[in-house]
């Protein structure tokens, strides 16, 4: 497979064109916004947290296929997870992107560790300038998780 085909997997284009959980939440929720100033990509997230678990999520954003697909896939991966597992997932995602987060890869058997569909994004790693596209939703999520925990 050429690196372009690895980057633009079918599932990524599908999420780009049909983003999941798009919109805003009503009722109590936390909200966070992220921006990539160098390229202008925007991402925002609403999280509804119940008993330490992500009960619902909604996202909005504008940007390239990578950032938007990453965000859409992220919503599917975190909904229903505990805040803790969502954090583990964030760590694991960044590790997959080759970002040194000062931690080892997680035991792939742990629920928070399973990237699933998100693994389609591993082709991004070969495109260093696009890594920040893929991680924008995750840094925004981290922000929302911080809020949810305080």
């Amino acid at each position, binding site marked *: 497979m*050429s*690196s*372009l*085909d690895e*980057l*633009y997997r079918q599932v990524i*284009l599908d999420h780009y*064109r049909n983003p999941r959980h798009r919109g805003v939440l009503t009722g109590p929720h936390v909200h966070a916004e992220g921006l990539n100033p*160098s*390229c*202008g*990509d*925007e991402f925002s997230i609403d999280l509804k947290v119940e008993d330490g678990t992500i009960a619902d999520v909604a996202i909005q954003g*504008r*940007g*390239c*296929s*990578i950032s*938007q697909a990453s965000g859409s896939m992220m919503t599917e991966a975190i909904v229903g997870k505990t805040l803790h597992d969502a954090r583990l997932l964030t760590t694991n995602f960044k590790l997959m992107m080759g970002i040194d987060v000062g931690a080892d890869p997680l035991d792939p058997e742990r629920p928070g560790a399973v990237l699933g569909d998100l693994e389609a994004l591993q082709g991004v790693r070969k*495109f260093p*300038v*696009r890594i920040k*596209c893929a991680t924008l939703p995750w840094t925004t999520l981290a922000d929302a998780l911080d809020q949810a925990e305080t």
Partner: protein
Amino acid sequence: MTDLSHLRDDFPILHREVNGWPLVYLDSAATTQKPVQVLDAVDAFYRTKNANVHRGAHTLSAEATAAYEGARAKVAAFVNAGSPNEIVFSRGATTALNHIAYGWGLNHLSAGDRVVLTVMEHHANVVPWQLLARYTGIELVYLTLDDDYEVDLTGLDDLLDERVKVVAISAMSNVTGTLGPVRPLVEAARSVGALVVVDAAQLVPHSPTDVQDLDADFLVFSGHKMLAPTGIGALWGKSERLEEMEPTEGGGEMIADVGLYESRWAPVPQKFEAGTPPVAQAVGLGAAVDYLTAIGMETVRAHEHAITGYTLKRLAEVPDLKVYGPSDPTRRGGAVSFTLADIHAHDIATILDQRGIEVRAGHHCAKPLMRYLAVPATARASFYLYNTTDDVDRLVDGLFEARSVFGFDA
């Protein structure tokens, strides 16, 4: 089309490969590549006459000063300034615009005064005025674009009144290629006694420029966008305007005398060149000006009109592609922004880059314009004298691949 392809040999970088393909550099509006003539001039300066300028009685210092002032004279001649003293060397267009906003604006503008801009301005010609507004309470007013991406002057008469003190306009948009209507604006501004500041960062590199003929008050440009090194640019100002301006930086060289509590300034242009200037970079700019002059700026412009025309024609063959910019290639510059179906500009740039084709994607430091055009990002191909129709053909091939990667029919 004027064939300048023989010049490509002067540009070492054009012979490198990117991702296994010969480089096609279509990002000259961001920064241009450098010919060996410029690189050699800079290198020779360091190897034979490097010294600090203006301060020394020794031979090296005299030679360095002559090289530096010689570059000033070349730049002055290149834009037909009235005198070399009307050229202030700065780090680039951005710094020059800030000098004007602070150095002239802080001392001449106050609450309620208006500065007229256009929605197509680069951040460099927006943010300094916003910063000035914080300190002075001036108001910013924007001209918009018409359907063919030209600056819309229809409301100008209503807009211009004695509150307007400055009209600051780009002579050529780095996004749409639109030529700013400098002449009509100079005339209109004069009628209410307003100054005209021209952001010529995209004009001077691409077109013959005659500051006396344009008759604005200030005009700025960057060396790195015209074959010269990074770190150097120029601020041209009419003598009277420069005399009225206060220095924005204090330090050595810009003084006549320094006391413990007060100082007196050196004459223009030294007054605006505090500290050790970018000497070698100025020498490089002088060499770039020599290079461009030898080719002839009319030739450079003709070549760009031709290649822009060819590009617009070929892009029209790509389905779902939309160009943001004037349609007549002879009435615009060689920065061609476009979108392609629902493929985001960054994805276009990545796909092209895989084929060694370097285009820019994003907001191009013109967020107000992107909002005005209601498009979050565009891809942009921009040209200079070293580009050929082959480059354009490879661009178009790449765009067809982008379509196919994103599942569109070729």
